[in-house]
């Protein structure tokens, strides 16, 4: 058995190693190889860096790190020379990699134009301080504080950065005090509903049972959301630490991580972390001689959105089809295998670790009166700086979209922002000063959700947008209850008709009526929130619906059935690019001559619009369609 003193020795050793890593005179090269980095080619960049340092016979540390959140600049490479701040290079290619080695490590030219910033002590001429840039400055990186800065496969890196001190703190103060601490911190569930975490724990702790379970919900299913994935990939021990503390507070000896199988890297990181934690006595029987036993099992989910719902998730772990069951009984009283069960989101658990490491007061420094702490957010859509950010609760949507996100790209006008994924609603520009907290977002007709934020610009059709989310909800409904299964189908059918120009008078009222019925009548959260994208877009953008139905016109120029592309020959320079790229050969015209689109052949793919040189801007979108 591992004693507390053994752990403290381990911790001291890890800190000493971390220290020497940064002070042994060898440069450090870190590559962001989380899923986002990998899809941008970071593994090839890593290979190129290794080859280059070998070729140049440079003695250095190279390791992989998780995601810092600057997805717009992936692949990211960090180079730290002794006594210099870390330089973060963005959009690194395998071709650029040897040049960085050659230029910075050998010739001491940091190539500032490839860098997005520095961090650490000191400044480098021509490169801004990363955390002072507009993207990072308004952020408060806490749950993500180690993400992208430590090697996620290294327990030592985690230990050297306060890791597992939350567990030792918890064991020192006892389970009741742990709940008290989480209560004082004001932590609310980060998975979506924002239920006070301590209260849920209280129910479970007080439920008499010979066995209780903790489940970490890592079934992140919202389209466009990747907060949890990044955290699991970049800092897996943080989640394990939160689970150990939560299990201890609840009196649960078994924890499950329900993680979707589409997250292979997160699963690999988790398995590695669990193995390390077991080896060092941080998981298993009698952890650090505290008398507390805790075992973590991983259950891979098959990617059903509904399995993010607690009761469906439990059914799935039990080997049944993932379908929600009515509550009560609540899982905290009768959950997995009929035993009291707590399900916490990945981020909530990471926050639990932070609260125990740093204290509830520290945690509550940020946030509003009712929404304490920070929130990780996946910022996506029509916004310049897409990526993973962490902000204090209470920041406004405007700050989020414009200051951090940089507004819509290509000079387009911002139109709306959607929070909370398929369950959330759309917020128009007029409400952009709404603070990002649970209650304010609810009041605006949407929800916090797990932290997905989708930005839309003037070219986004709100009807089409609602159709997209209803298509998702309709496909992901478990099929059990009537309002959700058949109601989302009707909503989708009507929205498809409207987008296709087949909308009928009365459809908007029908959507509203059905939407209300589905919300009121559905069995679980999926159905109860599925109409939100429709209802909020009708609420804020009713005129777009009306234009579609009555005028067969898509004001955003997005719905293919309702638009035509048209070449304005006053502006056309006759470059023939559009004709060359048209996949259906619908465009005719001579070099330097006027060009025409045959509307009967055109499929509204929009390639002509995209390829038309900016200077000319001759392709226009016309709605209603010329074909009608």
């Amino acid at each position, binding site marked *: 058995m591992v004693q507390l003193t053994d752990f403290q020795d381990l911790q001291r050793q890890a800190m000493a190693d971390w220290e020497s890593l940064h002070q042994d005179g060898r440069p450090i090269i870190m590559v962001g190889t989380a899923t986002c980095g990998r899809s941008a080619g970071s593994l090839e960049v890593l290979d190129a860096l290794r080859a280059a340092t070998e070729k140049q016979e440079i003695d250095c540390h190279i390791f992989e790190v998780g995601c810092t959140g600057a997805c717009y600049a992936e692949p990211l490479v960090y180079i730290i020379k002794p006594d210099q701040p870390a330089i973060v290079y963005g959009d690194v290619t395998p071709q650029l990699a040897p040049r960085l080695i050659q230029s910075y490590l050998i010739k001491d030219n940091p190539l500032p134009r490839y860098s997005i910033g520095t961090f650490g002590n000191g400044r480098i001429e021509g490169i801004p301080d990363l955390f002072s840039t507009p993207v990072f400055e308004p952020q408060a990186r806490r749950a993500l504080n180690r993400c992208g800065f430590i090697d996620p496969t290294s327990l030592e890196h985690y230990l050297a950065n306060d890791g597992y001190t939350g567990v030792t703190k918890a064991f020192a103060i006892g389970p009741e005090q742990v709940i008290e601490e989480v209560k004082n911190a004001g932590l609310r569930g980060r998975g979506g509903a924002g239920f006070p975490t301590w209260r849920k724990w209280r129910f479970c702790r007080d439920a008499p049972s010979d066995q209780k379970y903790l489940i970490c919900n890592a079934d992140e299913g919202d389209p466009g959301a990747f907060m949890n994935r990044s955290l699991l990939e970049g800092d897996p021990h943080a989640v394990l630490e939160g689970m150990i503390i939560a299990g201890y507070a609840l009196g649960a000896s078994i924890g499950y991580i329900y993680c979707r199988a589409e997250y292979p890297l997160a699963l690999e990181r988790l398995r590695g972390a669990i193995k390390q934690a077991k080896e060092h006595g941080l998981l298993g029987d009698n952890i650090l001689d505290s008398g507390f036993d805790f075992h973590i099992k991983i259950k891979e989910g098959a990617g059903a959105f509904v399995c993010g719902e607690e009761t469906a998730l439990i059914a799935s772990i039990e080997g049944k089809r993932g379908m929600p069951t009515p509550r009560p009984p609540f899982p905290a009283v009768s959950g997995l295998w009929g035993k009291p069960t707590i399900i916490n989101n990945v981020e909530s658990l990471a926050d639990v670790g932070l609260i125990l490491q740093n204290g509830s007061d520290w945690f509550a420094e940020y946030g509003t009166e009712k929404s304490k702490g920070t929130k990780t957010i996946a910022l996506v859509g029509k916004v310049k700086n897409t990526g993973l950010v962490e902000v204090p609760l209470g920041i406004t949507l405007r700050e989020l979209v414009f200051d951090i996100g940089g507004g819509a790209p290509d000079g387009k006008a911002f139109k709306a922002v959607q929070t909370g994924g398929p369950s959330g609603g759309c917020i128009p520009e007029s409400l952009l000063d709404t603070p990002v907290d649970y209650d304010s977002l609810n009041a605006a007709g949407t929800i916090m959700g797990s932290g997905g934020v989708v930005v839309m610009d003037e070219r986004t059709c709100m009807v089409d947008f609602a159709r997209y989310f209803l298509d998702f909800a*309709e496909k992901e*409904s*478990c*099929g*059990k209850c*009537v309002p959700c299964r058949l109601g989302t189908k*009707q909503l989708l059918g009507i929205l498809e008709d409207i987008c296709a120009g087949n909308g009928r008078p009365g459809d908007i009222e029908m959507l509203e009526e059905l939407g209300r019925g589905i919300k*009121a*009548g559905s069995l679980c959260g999926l159905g109860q929130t599925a109409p939100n994208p429709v209802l909020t877009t009708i609420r804020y953008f009713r005129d777009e619906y009306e234009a579609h139905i009555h005028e067969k016109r898509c004001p955003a120029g997005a719905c293919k059935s309702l638009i035509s592309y048209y070449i304005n020959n006053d502006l056309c320079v006759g470059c023939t690019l559009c004709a060359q790229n048209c996949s259906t050969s619908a465009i005719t015209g001579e070099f330097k001559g006027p060009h025409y689109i045959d509307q009967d052949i055109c499929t509204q793919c929009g390639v002509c619009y995209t390829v038309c040189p900016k200077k000319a801007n001759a392709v226009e979108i016309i709605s209603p369609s010329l074909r009608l």
Partner: protein
Amino acid sequence: MEKIKLTIDGLEIEAEAGTSVLDAALANDIYIPHLCHHPDLKPVGACRLCGVDVNGRMEMSCLLPVREGLDVKTNSPEVGATRQVAIELLLADHPQGCLSCGASLQCELLHIADHIGVDGERIERLRRPSEPLPIDNSNPFFSFDPNKCVLCGICVRTCEDIVGLGVLDFVNRGSRTVIGTFGNEPFIDSICESCGECVVRCPVGSLAPKRWQRPSHEVQSTCVYCGVGCGIYLGVKGDQVVSVRADRERPSNQGSLCVKGRYGYNFINHKDRLTTPLIKKEGQFVEATWDEALDLVAEKFADYKGSEFAALASAKCTNEDNYLIQKFTRAVMQTNTVDHCARL
């Protein structure tokens, strides 16, 4: 059993502790629409039709246990609106050929629509399903039409919780959800035992017997196949048995039947039945009257009294039949050599 007093729509009723508001209402002849509820099965709250109002809050009455003093309204505006949406959605998704559907008179969907009241024009505004799904006719005794299925899950729960087999589950997700066997194979290729328990519980015409005639009357009896001795009702039309239904009150089967008991009755009316006594003459069987046959038997048997005679009674015959055969053997034929196939 403890009795609980509660009020439904102003009527005070009594119910046993532990029952649901829905069951309590139904027991007191107060109808609340419901589609996924079955008295033999645990409630699941899937159809969302049985909502009631309790202090301004909508609760599914199938999941709501009775409480002392509970004041339930079965038709508040919110409850009514939700129910209206649910039934309209169901009807818009359902085939319209009620006249040719075997379930029509027992159809719960029609029953509910009739209760809630349906505006045809509103249904017209909803989108109709596109491609019909293929009907599974593979089982000789029943068919499964997924287009009529309302996904109440009663068949799934019946097979799991009553039959203990678990042939069926929900397959696919969203509006493509259907009831299916493992791998969504036809019934005949699944582990289905054809007991028909799901068929008799289907609230619509989705799982339906292939041959169904409403009997003119029923006679309580006992199944003739195995030693379990299931209680049955034989459905009679004219001089034919046209149906078999399980007796819910009989302790031996409590409403369940197997494939033979439920569907295996047609041998009764089979053309091969012996309908007249036959006497073998010169190697050929020749039709005879009862008197001819019985006289011959009596005359011949008289020659073999004692150890030259044996009788085999029958485990398929009644107690009374068997008693008489052994009595005849012992008392008339003067031997105890009477046995039957107990050992086979």
